[in-house]
């Protein structure tokens, strides 16, 4: 019997391992706490498999190099924290409009500005959805354990390739810096998705062609399909346009290719919800505390369950609506002043009490704090 790959790994390093499993061959980044181990780990591992690591001069250059490498055919990733993500957002928008697959890891720390560099936070949740200017639809995933970080990073690459779009992995300082014993997946155990390539001859190639699912086959530079990539709103040939009959379809495509396929993107974990009267809704490190709190409350006979969001964006509206139909209250714990709770308020009936447990001092939410909140609610 083969020995399973049991390893004691830090969350940030698990993220690198997940990326390598998914086929990452290019990493560009800039040091920033608490994400730096991602750059260090990539710089160690990539040359061993013929991949490429480069430390750029800033975060803007990092995401630019990542996009350039992805258009050139390599699965690419960068990693940063809040201040760096803020610098990247303009070019993440470039990746949206040019439909370039790439993965951006944000190991969240307290903000705004330099904020709390070594302290945990979930205050970039809304930034992952609305960070760059203009209209677009974002995908973001949020692991809560070191093991999750492997699977969610693989999933982020798969989603990026499947939908030709940037995907944000929202880690936080607690997960990034926690060490846990995990089992890495064996080769072939998890399905890896690669971008669809064109099959037509170059003279018939339409780089941003409208397809039934909204995703155009993507050629890499150097494969004989010489085409134009631009951040200007463009027609199906990749040339800039001011025509309404070309602008509407392009922007609709960016939205519909994702929003028509949310079933492929949404991932939630549901625990103890069958008869639950109260639901904890949480993501990231707070999901762990919520699970522990719910388990303890169940032992005391309280009917409480947990809905954990692995997919943050697009927001899992209908799943949360269905799961909370019989609930008398929900409790939303977050390490910010209330970001995801605004989405939950948007989708749940007005009569349903929505309680919040928010911490934004850079420390974690503990199961005991959530239990205290639960007692208040009862």
């Amino acid at each position, binding site marked *: 019997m083969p020995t399973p790959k049991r390893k004691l790994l830090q969350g940030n390093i698990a993220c690198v391992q997940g990326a390598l499993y998914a086929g990452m061959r*290019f990493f*560009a980044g800039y040091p920033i706490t608490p994400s730096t181990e991602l750059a260090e780990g990539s710089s*160690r591992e990539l*040359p*061993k*498999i*013929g991949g*490429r690591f*480069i430390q*750029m*001069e*800033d975060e*803007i*250059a*990092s995401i*630019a*190099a*990542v*996009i*350039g*490498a*992805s*258009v*050139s*055919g*390599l699965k*690419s990733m960068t990693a940063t924290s809040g201040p760096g993500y803020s610098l990247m957002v*303009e*070019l993440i928008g*470039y990746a949206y409009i040019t439909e370039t697959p790439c993965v951006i890891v944000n190991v969240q720390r307290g903000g705004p500005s330099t904020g709390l560099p070594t302290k945990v936070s979930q205050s970039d949740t809304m930034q992952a959805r609305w960070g760059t200017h203009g209209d677009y639809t974002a995908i973001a995933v949020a692991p809560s354990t070191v093991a999750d970080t492997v699977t969610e990073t693989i999933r982020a690459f798969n989603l990026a390739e499947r939908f030709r779009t940037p995907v944000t992995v929202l880690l936080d300082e607690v997960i990034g810096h926690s060490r846990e014993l995990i089992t890495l997946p064996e080769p072939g155990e998890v399905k890896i998705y690669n971008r669809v390539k064109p099959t037509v001859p170059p003279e018939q190639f339409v780089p941003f062609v409208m397809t039934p699912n909204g995703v155009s086959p993507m050629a890499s*530079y*150097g*494969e*004989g399909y*010489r*085409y*134009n*990539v*631009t*951040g*200007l709103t463009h027609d199906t*040939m990749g*040339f*800039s346009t001011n025509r309404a009959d070309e602008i509407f379809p392009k922007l609709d495509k960016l939205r519909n290719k994702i929003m028509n396929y949310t079933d492929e993107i949404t991932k939630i974990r549901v625990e103890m919800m069958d008869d639950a009267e109260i639901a904890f809704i949480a993501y990231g490190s707070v999901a762990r505390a919520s699970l522990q709190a719910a388990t303890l409350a169940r032992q005391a006979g309280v009917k409480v369950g947990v809905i954990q969001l692995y997919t943050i964006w697009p927001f899992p509206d209908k799943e949360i609506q269905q799961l909370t139909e019989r609930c008398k209250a929900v409790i939303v714990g977050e390490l910010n002043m209330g970001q995801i709770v605004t989405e939950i308020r948007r989708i749940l009936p007005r009569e349903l009490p929505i309680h919040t447990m928010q911490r934004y001092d850079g420390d974690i939410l503990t199961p005991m704090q959530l239990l205290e909140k639960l007692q208040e609610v009862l």
Partner: protein
Amino acid sequence: MPVVEKQRSDVILQYLRPKKKFPSVWCPGCGNGIVMGALIRAIDKLGYKRDEVCCVSGIGCTSRMPVYLDFNSLHTAHGRALAFATGVKFAQPNMKVIVITGDGDALAIGGNHFIHACRRNIDITTILINNFIYGMTGGQGSPTTPAGAFSTTTPYGNVEKQFDPCGLAQAAGASFVGRSTVFHTPQMEKMIMAALEHKGFSLVEVIANCHTYYGRLNKQGDPVAMVNSFKENAVMLGKAQTMTPDQLKGKYVIGTLHENKEATEFCDEYQKVVDVRMAGGKAR
């Protein structure tokens, strides 16, 4: 039309994108077209395969050039062309990567990427068309606007000093640096050829006319007058070395200003690391 001229325009037409909607965004008489012609002829003479050429640019009048050319093209965000190009070149080291940029794009918003691309000595050829002004946004001052010159944001004369892109590139580590003007097209063409063939970071600065804004605001006349002024004010490097700083005021020193064939190139050096690691080499 003389036969020679006809042949030249035939070459250019072969390299323009058949499906792109023309005309270009450039004003009649713009120097950008002259540089584009020289670039096409240089690539044609060197015989590069089009699939192996990638033109990368940022934002500005100059940065529209890759869109017209039938190569792989990446028209990116303001100032970031060299950072994108670094990703392309590093991912595909056999690709001939050419960055086409302007003075504002390369030296203001993109200044950091410019010096670091030079420092890495990554094998990218950068053609910097310097017209001393922001053209696309309508004539604002740039990092190369001369002291005292007028622009729409220096209405009382520029109080700032100008960058010397060639000196900056050389100091930052670029291994090929040259300057030409849109008057000196045969020299520019040869310089672009030499830059493309050079292994390492190469910069060709081309002094060009923006008569629409720089020329008009500084009373330098029409395109012909401006191009003639480049002829009058250009000094070959050899001659410049015999002149005093006072005599060189307002002159453009042209020619290959710096060339280092020994400098190691970034992608090559990284490949050496990859080769050792893939062979199972031990970390220090």
